[in-house]
C-alpha cells in the first residue's frame, strides 16, 4: 500500500505530462496509466492512495473502470477522483454514480485539485 502514491489515468500525452510535472512539483509521488484496463492493473499492483481518472479512456472507459474497481474488494477502498472535460451537472452525477468519490473538471483548477487529493489521502490514511 503506497499511501502517498497518486495514480494519474490520462490517455492524452500532453495533459498527462503536464499534470505529472505539476503534481511532482507539488510534492506528490505520481504513477500513470493510459487506459482503463491499465488503470485497474496499476490499482491492484500499486495500491495507490488516490486515483485521478479521466473518463474518456481507450480500451475501457473511466465509468466502466470505476464500476469494476468498486466490485473488486482488493481496490474498492481506493478513492477515485473523476477528472473530465464533461462539465455538465449530469456528467458529475454520472461520475459519482459510477463510484467516483469526487469530481473535478478540465481545465483543472490546480489548487482545488491539490486540496481534493490531500483530503482523500488524509482520509485513507
Amino acid at each position, binding site marked *: 500500500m503506497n499511501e502517498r502514491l497518486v495514480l494519474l489515468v490520462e490517455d492524452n500525452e500532453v495533459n498527462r505530462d503536464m499534470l505529472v510535472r*505539476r503534481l511532482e*512539483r507539488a510534492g506528490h509521488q505520481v504513477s500513470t496509466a493510459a487506459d482503463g484496463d491499465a488503470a485497474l492493473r496499476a490499482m491492484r499492483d500499486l495500491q495507490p492512495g488516490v486515483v485521478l481518472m479521466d473518463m474518456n479512456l481507450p480500451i475501457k472507459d473511466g465509468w466502466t473502470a470505476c464500476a469494476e474497481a468498486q466490485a473488486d474488494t482488493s481496490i474498492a477502498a481506493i478513492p477515485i477522483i473523476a477528472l473530465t*472535460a464533461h462539465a455538465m451537472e449530469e456528467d458529475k452525477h454520472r461520475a459519482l454514480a459510477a463510484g467516483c468519490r469526487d469530481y473535478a473538471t478540465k*481545465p483543472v483548477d490546480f489548487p482545488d485539485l491539490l486540496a481534493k487529493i490531500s483530503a482523500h489521502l488524509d482520509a485513507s490514511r
Partner: protein
Amino acid sequence: MRAADAVSQLRPRLSLRGRLYLFSGAILILFAINVATSLWGSLARNESSLAYQEAATAAQLTAELEQNLQTKRQQVLVLATLRETTDEPLDDVALGQARADLEIIGERLRQLGGYGGQDLEAYYRRLHDSVTALLREWQLFYDRYNSIDPLPDVESALSYSNTQQRLQELDQRQSFVALQRANAIDRTISLTDQITVVGFISSIAITLALVFAMIRSTNASLTRMKRGVERFGSGDLTYRIDEQRDSGEIGDLARTFNEMSTKLQVAIEEMNTARADADSANAAKSMFLANVSHELRTPLNAIIGYSEMLQDELGDGTDIDREQFHHDLSTIIFSGKQLLNLINDILDLSKIETGKMQVSREIFSPAGLLVQVCDALSPLLAQNKNHLSLNIDKNSMRDINSDRGKLQQIVTNLFSNACKFTKEGEITVSASMTAQSLIIAVSDTGIGMTQAQQDRVFDAFTQAEANTGLKYGGTGLGLAIVKEFCAMLGGSISLESEPGKGSIFRVTLPADPASVPASA
C-alpha cells in the same frame, strides 16, 4: 349477431324523421281500420232493426188484411142471407161504405206488395190473384145487389178459403224470410264485433311494438354516437362511428362527427409530431452545447495547465531548462491553434445549419489546388512518418467552376485526417476528371474503421472512439463539414474502410454546375 340486427343491416336504416312518419302512418291506418269496422258493425245493427221493423209491419199488414177479409166476408154472407129473406135494397150510403171497404182491402193488398222482395214475389202474386178474384166477386155482389140479376155465389167457400190459404202461406213465408235475414244480420253483427275487438287489441299490440322498436332503434343509434364520442374523447383517435348503420339525421351526425374526428386526428398528430420535432431539436441543441463545452475544455486544459506550470517554474527561482521551456510553450501554442480551429469549425457548422454559408464560385485548376494543399500539410505528413503519393491524371484535368475555398477545406480535412490516423504508412491523394465530374480520392493505410464507426463518422462531434480527439487531435467536426460542403457544391462523398487496413474517402464534384442538370 341476432336475426333482427342481421335484417336491419340488409336494408338501409330509415332516418329518424322517416321512422316518425312511418310510425304515425301505421297508427293512423290502424285507427282507420278500427273506425271502419265499427261503422260496419253499427250499419249492420241499423239494418237489423230496419229488417225487424219491416217484418213487424208486414206481419201487421197481413193480420189486418186477414181481419178485413174476414169481416167483409161476414158482411157479404149476412147481406146474401138478407137478400134471400127480404127484398129491401141497400141504400147508397151502405153501398158506398161497402165499396170503400173493398178499396181499403185493395189498398192493404198493394201495401203488402211493398214488403218482402223477390223471395216473397211468387207468394204475393198468388195471394194477389186470389184476393183480386175475391174482391171482384164481392164487387159484382154489391153491384147486383139492388138489381134483379142473380148474385154471384158468395157462399161458396172456395175462393175465400183459397185466399185464406194464400194469405197463410205468405205469412209463413214472411216469417221464414225474416228469420233468415235476422240470422244473417246477427252473424254479421257478431263478425264485426269480433273484428272490432281483435282489431282494437292488435292495434294496441302493434302500437306498443312500434313504440318499442322506435325507442330501441333510436336509442341504439344514439348509443353508437355516445360511444363514439366517448372513445374518441378518451384518446382513441382512430375510432370512427359506423355511419353505414344509420341514414338521415343520425347518419349525417355520425358522418359529420367522423369528419371532425379525422380533422382532429390529423391536427393532433401534426401537433404531436411538431412537439416531438421540437423536443428532439432541443435535445440536439443541448447535446451540441455539451459537446462544444467538452471540445473547448480539452485544449484549454493544456493551455491553462502549462501556462500555470511555467508561471510556477519562473516564480520559484530555480534554473530554467530552456529547451523544456520552449517545448512547453509550443504545446501551449499548438493547443491554442487547435482551439481556434475548433471555434472556426463550430462557426462553419453553425453557418451551414442556419443556411448562412455562401458558395462563391470561380474558375480554377483543381490540380494546382491539390499540390498546394499537400505542400502546406507536409509537416503534418512528417509528424507520423507517413509517405505521400500524389496521383493526378494530368490528361483529364482541366479548370473547374466551383468554390475554391471549400474544395481546399475538403481536401485539407481529408488529408489531415489521413495523416492523423496513419503511422509510418502510405497516404495517396489521387484526382481525375470525367466529362462532367472531378473525382478526388484520399486513401491511407491507417487504423481504419468498423462498419458501425463508418455509419457515424460524418455526424458532427463523432469520432471513431470517444477519445479519438485527444489521441489523434481534431475536433470531430471535420468530416461533418466535408460532407456538408460536398452537398453544397452539388457533389457527394463516399467511404470505404476496414479496421487495421485503412480508409478511402472519395469525393465527386460537378466540374461546372451549369453543365449538369439540377438533379445530378
